[in-house]
């Protein structure tokens, strides 16, 4: 049984993206939330912001530290998960589901192909430990 859904693609910085049509939903991985510990604050861009693959998208803060989130894809923010402002702990509970961060209209959908599939990401984090 895998923790990491097959339909997501993963980055080396522990973000994921799920592509549906021309939009990508972005979040952080279960491994990331485990490493961070109790998440208490999330900072996300506004709708309409242009983001670039590999560049800062926002940040998540746990009790002990702040970590940057990097965008897995290039495009424009079309939706932000506002519920995380009030309930950042959702990121610890359901990082691949209800605690998605933003939706991005992809301007370069082919970027996704270069990201890791679930099996590769699992090997990657296993090697990181």
């Amino acid at each position, binding site marked *: 049984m895998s923790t990491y859904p097959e339909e997501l693609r993963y980055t080396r910085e522990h973000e994921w993206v799920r592509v549906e049509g021309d939009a990508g939903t972005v979040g952080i991985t279960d491994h990331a939330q485990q490493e961070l*510990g109790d998440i208490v604050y999330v900072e996300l861009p506004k709708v309409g912001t242009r983001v670039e693959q590999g560049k800062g998208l926002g940040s998540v803060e746990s009790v*002990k530290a702040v970590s940057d989130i990097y965008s897995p894809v290039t495009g424009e923010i079309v939706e932000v998960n506002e519920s995380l402002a009030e309930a950042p702990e959702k990121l610890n509970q359901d990082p691949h589901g209800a605690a998605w961060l933003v939706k991005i209209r992809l301007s370069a959908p082919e970027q996704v192909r270069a990201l890791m599939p679930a099996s590769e990401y699992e090997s990657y984090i296993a090697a990181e430990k």
Partner: protein
Amino acid sequence: MGARMVDFGGWDMPVQYSGILEEHHAVRNAVGLFDVSHMGEIEIRGSEALKLAEYVTTNSVARLKPGQIQYSALLYEHGGFVDDILVHKVAEDHFFLCVNASNQEKDYRHIRAANGWHAEVDFSSGRYAQLAIQGPRALAALQKLTTTDLAAIRRHCFTDGEVAAAKARIARSGYTGEDGFEIYVDPGQAPRIWDEVLEAGREFGIKPCGLGARNTLRLEAAMSLYGHEIDASINPFEAGLGWIVKLDKGEFIGRAALEDRSQAGVRRKLTGFEMRGRGIAREGYEIFVEGSPAGWVTSGGPSPTLNRNIGLCYLPVDRAGAGQVIQVMIRGQLVDALTVPTPFYKRAK
């Protein structure tokens, strides 16, 4: 155990077990158990032990009675901190110092170099493991494992006895802002004692706690951490620790510099603040007052007990009173904060 470990000055240290928030609340509401064996121990013995202890520390060792503990500091001649320490008076000719892990070798050299008397200075860290049992139910949990009457040990006092049938120095002290005990035991016995304390505390909701919760707890209690609030560039008056400096006790290292400072006044002061705007201040972030850089954050983070984002910072003395609006530079943006009295959290007596 599922502990997440980090390397801390050569020690594999648990940052957290079940989660910092859960561990933090356990200490505030029930009891938590910390392995703080990384802390250093230095002992000063002999008929001239008092003279040396008095000369290297800022607080009045002469006022201590056997069985009492005193918060104190080792200073450089210029008045900056070598370390902050706890002095335990074991006997008239024996002082037991608990010092910070990362400073212990430096402290030992500092004390040895100051030994102009016939005092014996021993580096004893290898002979002690230290467990901290902290929280309102700490006494009830630990009492199950000892015949020593724990209620009879007053705050900042200690006694030598047994815990779980092993010799233990039992001190009513801590770094959490709660009631509790710090016990010094034989390292060979420590893993077994750890297990027995967890078992004894189970009915009280005990949680094993890591360095993460230790930090959030001490921050709420506004206790200084070496390398953050205090270091060689900071003197005790700036850190709000003038109460551990007894300028009238006679000569000690750093006294002349502090005497000058106590007359000329200090320029900056450690100050508590609460975030007003959204964001969490972290160590090293810059503080602005009326648009100009004015200081820096020494420690900051969420306060799990108060549910607010709090921090400690250095500010110019004229800005250091409570009720001042300041700004913290958080990733390129100035966010409002308000200076507040410390400690942020004080337990009900």
